[in-house]
């Protein structure tokens, strides 16, 4: 790390609270290995964030960061699971290669993250248009809304994708 102060802070944080954080994560996840991995991720996240020297309540801060990572972790598991289920239904000749699968998964995580905060119908309209190439009129029939509404949904979903990760 660039600054000595930073490493010292993180080092102190690590030696004082790593064990406690691992325990907290273990209770959340029910798995020792995953808890250990995520505890590492929490410290990596803190080291790469610009404001760690202002930490006042270390445990509250740690659980805040860890909570975000746990949610993320479950979301990824859910995406992986859904993708595997879908692959299971593919004829063997059509199952993509290992590299392709990992690449698709990464894109899936990203898309899921972009769309996760949106209302169900907005997401559906966007996917039906972008993934299935459906026309607005057909999407409108499918979702029992007007075409005008579909157009609104599309703009809303795209805006969510464009602004992901920005401060609101």
């Amino acid at each position: 790390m660039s600054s000595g102060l930073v490493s010292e802070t993180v080092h102190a944080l690590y030696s004082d609270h790593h064990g406690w954080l691992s325990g907290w994560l273990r209770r959340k996840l029910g798995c020792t290995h995953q808890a250990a991995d995520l505890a590492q991720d929490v410290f990596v996240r803190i080291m790469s964030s610009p404001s760690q020297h202002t930490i006042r309540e270390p445990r509250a801060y740690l659980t805040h960061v860890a909570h975000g990572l746990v949610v993320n972790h479950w979301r990824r598991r859910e995406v992986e699971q859904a993708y595997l289920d879908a692959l299971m239904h593919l004829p063997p000749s059509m199952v993509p290669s290992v590299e392709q699968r990992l690449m698709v998964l990464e894109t899936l995580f990203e898309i899921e993250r972009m769309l996760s905060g949106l209302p169900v119908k907005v997401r559906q309209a966007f996917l039906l248009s972008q993934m299935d190439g459906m026309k607005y009129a057909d999407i409108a029939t499918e979702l029992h809304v007007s075409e005008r509404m579909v157009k609104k949904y599309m703009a809303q979903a795209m805006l969510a994708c464009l602004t992901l990760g920005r401060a609101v």
Partner: protein
Amino acid sequence: MEALVDNNHIAANPSYATLQQAAEWFAMLHAGEFDTEERAALQAWLEQDNAHRLAWQQVENVMRKFQHMGDDAARQTLHTLSQGRRRVVKSILALCLISAGGWSIARQPAVQQWSGILMAQHTTRIGERRRMQLADGSILWLNTASAVNIDYSASQRHIQLVAGEVWVQTATDTMQPGRPFIVSTRHGQLQALGTRFNVLDDGQRSHVAVFEGAVAIRLQQADQPGLIVQAGEQSSFDGISIQPAHEADPAMESWTRGMLVADNLPLPEFVARLERYRRGHLGYDPALSHLRIVGAFPLQDTDRALHLLEQTLPVRVHRLLPWWVTLEST
């Protein structure tokens, strides 16, 4: 240098209002109502400001992500994640219909099987096993990731194995005279002659192992000779020919008790069998191919089965991802 970096930083982040406009242009573009006048209007908007062009570039980046997600599994995944289960089945069926028209003939049987699994009366998920008692008292065990249809009519008792594996213990028919008990796979038909047997469709061939009584195999191509498999024997067949009978593998029955019995099984075969009960990838270092495995392994906890392997063989279980596991040599 400092100033340049700063410029880039600002340029890479068009304002919220600009992104909003770009999103609206996107929605209009996809409405299919884009005439020359609107095209000119979009062009004018783009030329108006560098930030507009950057915002539109970001729109195109998002669109590109979806274009690269060509395969059906990815599409299916996103639909699953964003809508209820029922809707998913409907959309998979719709995909089947589209695909059946568009794909080459060679792929059609696979498509039929795919939709067959979805429409089957009884299915199990990966890792699930289920016992069923039929109207006449016969007992079925459905193994992991399997699908069957049960059709009892006035003339026969028919089990259609759509995918996976089923173990059957037939009962004397409640109707007199007794109706024949038939298990069919896509490769042929099996008629039970008072019996306990197991049928596995591995995708390429159907395997039948008989533990009591006997089973008659009839191929899909009816002009080919059939075969009667006796208790303690097993055989396999594709649509065209039948393998001569040989000694039955106890593993073809032990799964109903939740065990994978390995009797001197080569490691690649062991991995292939265990993988059927697990989600995700299970691979192995080719250097381990010569290893042979003896023992009984729990199927309801395949991680434990792998752990047992670690204790008895020079093998280490490596977890790259929770669902991406490989066996490596120690």
